[in-house]
């Protein structure tokens, strides 16, 4: 069954916008909702100002007769406080699930974005995380904990209803200009935890959007790890970006380093990212390959290379009118492609 009326929550973040752009050509009717205005205008999408933290989603879904909900309003890292992350992830998802449940609900398929951060990172962890290796005793007050609570709600929902298929995509860490990890790696001198050189597994923005689109158009119930093939060492990644690693952060008492970075530098390193940058975490994506018959096009190494390539291209102007932004984005992509061909 192909989806006919799709609602995308959180369309205003860059990933949501990209997913919506790809979905417009594939589905008859597309709706988007978010608290903020979208950065780019998509012609065939109807935009609704709606906050998932309030219980409007249920009404929205029933009024618009939505059959597929793509829930992307899940924050993994934010410049807001941790309270906002908890509210958006746990309470927001709960509201979406409540809206999709009940006999009167027309929703038959739900796609939820989750993150690699759900596994956390620790010294004693196995080298690869497969989908069922979730560690339930992680510290409270962290994104990992919020994501765990969120996925617990989602799995309970999936068990309760048999009329709705639920797909959970655990997306790997992404590096771009607007993620914390991307900004961190782009520093000219990168402070790293002394004595650690973790393995990083990364996911390209295009692959993240493509995975969500494929999950929306197909029927693959269950949780899936989505990340690029292979690993890049942190020192390698910094070297690719043209920076220099400075092993100045003490390996223990990581909260102290986080505090120091926040006050001295511009980088706000969340706790799960601090753990990731000292121990590293790698996911096993074989279930994705088997079920979707697709694998991310960019390996971790290629993701890093494309970020480094993007650094040489000049930044886009701030988006004044949406169409202007579109044009700029298109031109930038063309320039990058030309650069890649000439290399």
């Amino acid at each position, binding site marked *: 069954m192909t989806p006919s009326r799709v609602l995308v929550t959180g369309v205003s973040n860059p990933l949501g916008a990209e997913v919506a752009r790809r979905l417009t050509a594939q589905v008859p009717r597309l709706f988007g909702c978010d608290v903020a205005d979208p950065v780019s205008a998509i012609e065939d999408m109807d935009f609704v100002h709606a906050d998932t933290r309030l219980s409007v989603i249920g009404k929205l879904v029933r009024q618009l007769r939505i059959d597929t909900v793509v829930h992307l309003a899940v924050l993994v890292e934010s410049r807001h406080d941790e309270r906002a992350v908890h509210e958006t992830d746990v309470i927001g998802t709960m509201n979406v699930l409540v809206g999709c449940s009940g006999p009167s609900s027309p929703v038959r398929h739900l796609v939820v974005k989750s993150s690699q951060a759900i596994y956390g990172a620790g010294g004693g962890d196995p080298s*690869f995380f497969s989908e069922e290796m979730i560690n339930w005793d992680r510290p409270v007050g962290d994104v990992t904990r919020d994501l765990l609570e969120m996925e617990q709600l989602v799995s309970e929902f999936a068990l309760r209803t048999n009329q709705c298929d639920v797909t959970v995509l655990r997306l790997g860490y992404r590096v771009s200009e607007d993620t914390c990890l991307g900004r961190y790696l782009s520093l000219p001198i990168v402070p790293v935890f002394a004595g650690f050189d973790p393995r990083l597994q990364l996911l390209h923005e295009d692959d993240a959007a493509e995975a969500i689109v494929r999950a929306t158009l197909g029927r693959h119930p269950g949780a899936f790890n989505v990340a690029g093939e292979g690993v890049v060492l942190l020192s390698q990644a910094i070297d690719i970006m043209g920076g220099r690693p400075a092993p100045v952060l003490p390996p223990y008492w990581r909260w102290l380093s986080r505090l120091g970075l926040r006050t001295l530098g511009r980088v706000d390193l969340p706790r799960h990212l601090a753990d990731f940058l000292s*121990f590293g975490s790698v996911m096993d994506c074989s279930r994705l390959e088997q079920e979707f018959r697709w694998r991310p096009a960019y390996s971790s190494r290629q993701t890093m290379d494309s970020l480094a390539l993007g650094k040489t291209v000049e930044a886009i102007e701030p988006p004044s009118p949406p169409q202007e932004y579109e044009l700029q984005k298109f031109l930038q992509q063309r320039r990058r492609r030309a650069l890649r061909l000439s290399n």
Partner: protein
Amino acid sequence: MIEATPRERRRNSKKAEIVAPRQGFRLPRSVRRLQRQAPMYALQGLSSLSTRLRDITGREVIDMRRVMEVIQFIYQQRELARRGPNYAVDDYGFDPEWTESFLTVFKTIYRDYWRVETTGVENVPATGRALLVANHAGVLPWDGTMIKTAVFSEHPHPRHVRALVASQFMGMPVMSWFLRRTGQAVGHPDDTRRLLERDQLVLVFPEGTRGTGKSFKDRYRLRRFGRGGFVATAIRAGAPIIPISVVGSEEIYPMIGDLGPVARFFGLPYFPVTPFWPWLGPPGMIPLPSKWRIQFHEPIDLSDLAPKAAEDQHLVMSLADEVREVIQRGIYDNLKRRRGVFL
């Protein structure tokens, strides 16, 4: 970028740039030439000195082969520094080139310091998977490095052995970096299975830290072999088990005491007290030059067992006991063959 045809190569090629010589102070040309050729002159001088000393004394005073090994090591390190980020590690973070360059150092220790005598290395298969099981002794895991060196330098088909490490060491600052880089994995059943499925040689110490942390009076008495988990993993993967007896590792740090509270404070499994450590400080960490013997036993073939047999706890434990017996007997044999602790 891969250039397949000469045409592509021509298209991608650039004209060589003519770089102007750096301005500023430069040494005279003759001095620069001398600087460039000094290593070569030194080597020539050393080799003629070696020949002359051999003629005078009638034996090898300066072994040129050893000298060349040192030079090779230095050049390898320079080459490694030059490759920048352009190298690949596998999913476990294993860097074969880097490891091989450091094996030269371990080979020197293997040959000259502990004078290891290895027997039965032909029992290790040249291709395909196998689970190596060895006794664990000595406060630091030097026996693991020596087994790795033995297989890499004595085997007709050099192979890298991937050892399994207790998870607490993978969280330690410098330790985790070094262990990951040289190809070790976490002692987790999932890691073992994955490595064996990739047809690797996996080394496991079923005694774990109970073996390394035992006191000197208990030397060469094997501890409990875990719960036989290694046998179950080998049966599931269809890999033969190769027992290894190591003699000599018990005497490198004669442990006469264990400071439990100090160990707990640092998060270590034990804090050893030897005649030299911690009294002498860092020099107390130099291991004693005992005489080592490593014996690789006949492989125990498990391919006739179905993967389901791994659930038969009785069979698993009896096989684990069999492996333990073989190793214990091998230890007694080799102790008899050894003339003295330091001879």
